[in-house]
């Protein structure tokens, strides 16, 4: 492993990869600070520009964006009380209170350091877990893959905010959406409505940009556009010894919680900060401090979201299963570059895997070195009025959607899903289960059909094989837990907490 990571650093320290890594974390931070565009939008925007570069450089760029977004989101949470990203929602509670108490500097500082430490722990976990898991996954067949994907989808719907029923419905809509295009086995078109451009299916970039980016802008346009940046002099970005003493275990716990939840399909970076915050409050000797500017309330969720970002790479790189919508874009990027994600990826593309792992260390360090001194610039970005920002963000989304295939049709797709996403928000439906089901849909279908062909039409194959049996058993228990009154009460408490 030591040789492998050394090889990874050789790959990462090529000038082009350093440039991509630095560019990725800077763009990611900017995107995290700006409302509307989101990591998926930024990735979609820059993806066409990477077509002439190697897949390793592309993945390094995308990973940099993903990490940077987690960091940038905390800045808006702390200074404006508006989370730049969903993963930073919980940071608002204590981060903004700290800023109001004149402690914006230590809050931003501990968020950065916590992210750095958590990112490093997650990278170590990625190195240790991904390779053996990929080796084990070589023995997986279609029933195991089908069961794992089913479990993933059920966890996503369970962890989604609000109604589980609505989440399941959007996941089913995602499955239907994913089946548009040529049939995987017969090669014949289906659900294309006679539109040639739909033969390749609905593009993920226009879909994600529409559902997350455009819909958020439309939602923002409906309300007041002014936002107030808290006016304070940001000083003491380096946390004091007492701050460190208060936060050290919060960072460690947040890192582990984030990493484990990141591996599980579902919320990843979005869910883990909530869980980490709740646990931190529970184990704290002074739980009454939470909500009143406790530094642990910043350190724990910020560590968790960064660790989850690292953890979520594991199912993608070792199993070829994207656990969340952002990983679905990674998945698409790999396919665009002619690389099939799956258990053979690490063995067949060691430069890609180890280069990516090493770049995560570099990216984390760059985030710390570049972004703390640049905090003044991010604050200035926050002060740009939304009436100037929103046309820019819309234009970036349009460019990103268009430039993948140079087709106006993709613009219509993005606008359509933008409006759909805006309405979904109004009606209380979440976009994440739809996106994940859309990505997993074709794989799920292929594995289901192959399994049934293998078993001669018997569904028993999914239960009789140990891994698929256990996975489906877990999925069943998760579904069942939602029906049981005691679990429903817990879930209602969790939803109230998130709101």
């Amino acid at each position, binding site marked *: 492993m030591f040789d492998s990571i050394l090889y990874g650093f050789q790959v990462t320290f090529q000038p082009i990869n350093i440039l991509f890594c630095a560019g990725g974390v800077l763009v990611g931070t900017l995107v995290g600070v700006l409302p509307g565009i989101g990591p998926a939008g930024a990735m979609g925007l820059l993806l066409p520009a990477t077509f002439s570069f190697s897949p390793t450089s592309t993945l390094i760029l995308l990973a940099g964006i993903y990490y940077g977004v987690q960091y940038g989101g905390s800045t808006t949470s702390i200074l404006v009380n508006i989370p730049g990203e969903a993963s930073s929602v919980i940071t608002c509670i204590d981060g903004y209170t700290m800023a109001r108490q004149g402690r914006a500097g230590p809050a931003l500082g501990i968020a950065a350091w916590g992210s750095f430490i958590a990112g490093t722990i997650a990278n170590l976990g990625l190195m240790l877990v991904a390779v053996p898991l990929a080796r084990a996954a070589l023995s997986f067949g279609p029933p195991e893959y089908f069961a794992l994907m089913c479990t993933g989808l059920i966890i996503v719907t369970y962890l989604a905010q609000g109604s589980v*029923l609505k989440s399941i419905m959007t996941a089913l809509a995602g499955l239907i959406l994913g089946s548009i295009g040529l049939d995987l086995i017969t090669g014949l078109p289906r659900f294309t409505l006679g539109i040639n451009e739909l033969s390749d299916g609905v593009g993920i970039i226009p879909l994600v940009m529409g559902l997350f980016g455009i819909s958020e802008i439309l939602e923002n346009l409906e309300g007041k556009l002014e936002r107030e940046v808290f006016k304070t002099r940001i000083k003491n970005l380096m946390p004091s010894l007492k701050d460190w003493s208060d936060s050290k275990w919060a960072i460690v716990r947040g890192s582990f919680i984030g990493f484990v939840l990141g591996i599980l399909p579902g919320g990843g970076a979005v869910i883990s900060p909530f869980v980490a915050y709740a646990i931190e409050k529970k184990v704290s000797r002074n739980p009454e401090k939470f909500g009143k500017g406790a530094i642990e309330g910043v350190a724990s969720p910020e560590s968790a979201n960064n660790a989850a970002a690292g953890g979520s790479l594991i199912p993608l790189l070792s199993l070829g299963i994207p656990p969340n919508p952002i990983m679905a874009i990674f998945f698409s990027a790999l396919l665009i570059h002619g690389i099939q994600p799956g258990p053979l990826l690490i063995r067949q593309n060691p430069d890609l895997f180890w280069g990516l792992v090493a770049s995560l260390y570099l990216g984390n360090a760059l985030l710390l070195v570049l972004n703390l001194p640049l905090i003044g610039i991010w604050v200035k970005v926050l002060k740009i009025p939304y*009436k100037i920002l929103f046309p820019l963000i819309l234009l970036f989304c349009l460019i990103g959607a268009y430039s993948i295939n140079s087709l106006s049709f993709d613009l219509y797709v993005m606008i359509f899903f933008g409006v759909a996403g805006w309405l979904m928000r109004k*009606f209380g439906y979440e976009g994440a289960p739809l996106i994940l089901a859309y990505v997993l849909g074709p794989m799920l279908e292929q594995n289901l059909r192959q399994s049934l062909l293998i078993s001669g039409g018997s569904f028993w194959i999914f239960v009789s094989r140990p891994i698929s049996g256990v996975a489906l058993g877990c999925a069943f228990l998760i579904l069942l837990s939602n029906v049981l009154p005691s679990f429903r009460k817990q879930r209602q408490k969790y939803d109230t907490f998130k709101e």
Partner: protein
Amino acid sequence: MKSLDQTSSLFWLLVSVLVFVEAIRLGVGSVHSPDMGFMTFGASGILGILSLYQFIRASLRKEDGHALPLFAGKFWKRVIFVILALVVYARVMPLLGYLISTFLLMMTLYGLLERKKIWLVFTASFVTTLFTYVVFSKWLSCQFPEGLFGF
């Protein structure tokens, strides 16, 4: 929320029926030999059942007295205007080319919230269009349509 849930569940019910019919037309096959419409048949079937369940559940629920109307009191006309602007942009970009159509779109969007300082709207639109053209077309080699005028 009650009427919202009723409306949305009826929408999903309609979607599920349409997909269900199309899946049957494509061919469902059997469990021994699943065909093209096999999974969408199942997915649309479950979606239909869940939509019906949600509709009934919402109908039996008491109306929430605090529920706000979907669009009242908000700047939803602004949203409709932006959506229309985007659709027109998608339509005219291949004809007019990136530079002209983007400039017009930016004028429209900046002008939506800044009506007094037209010179500012003009300058911002011009700079944005030129900047994105140089960055994405020249530096990042994205292919934008040239349109009728060849630029």
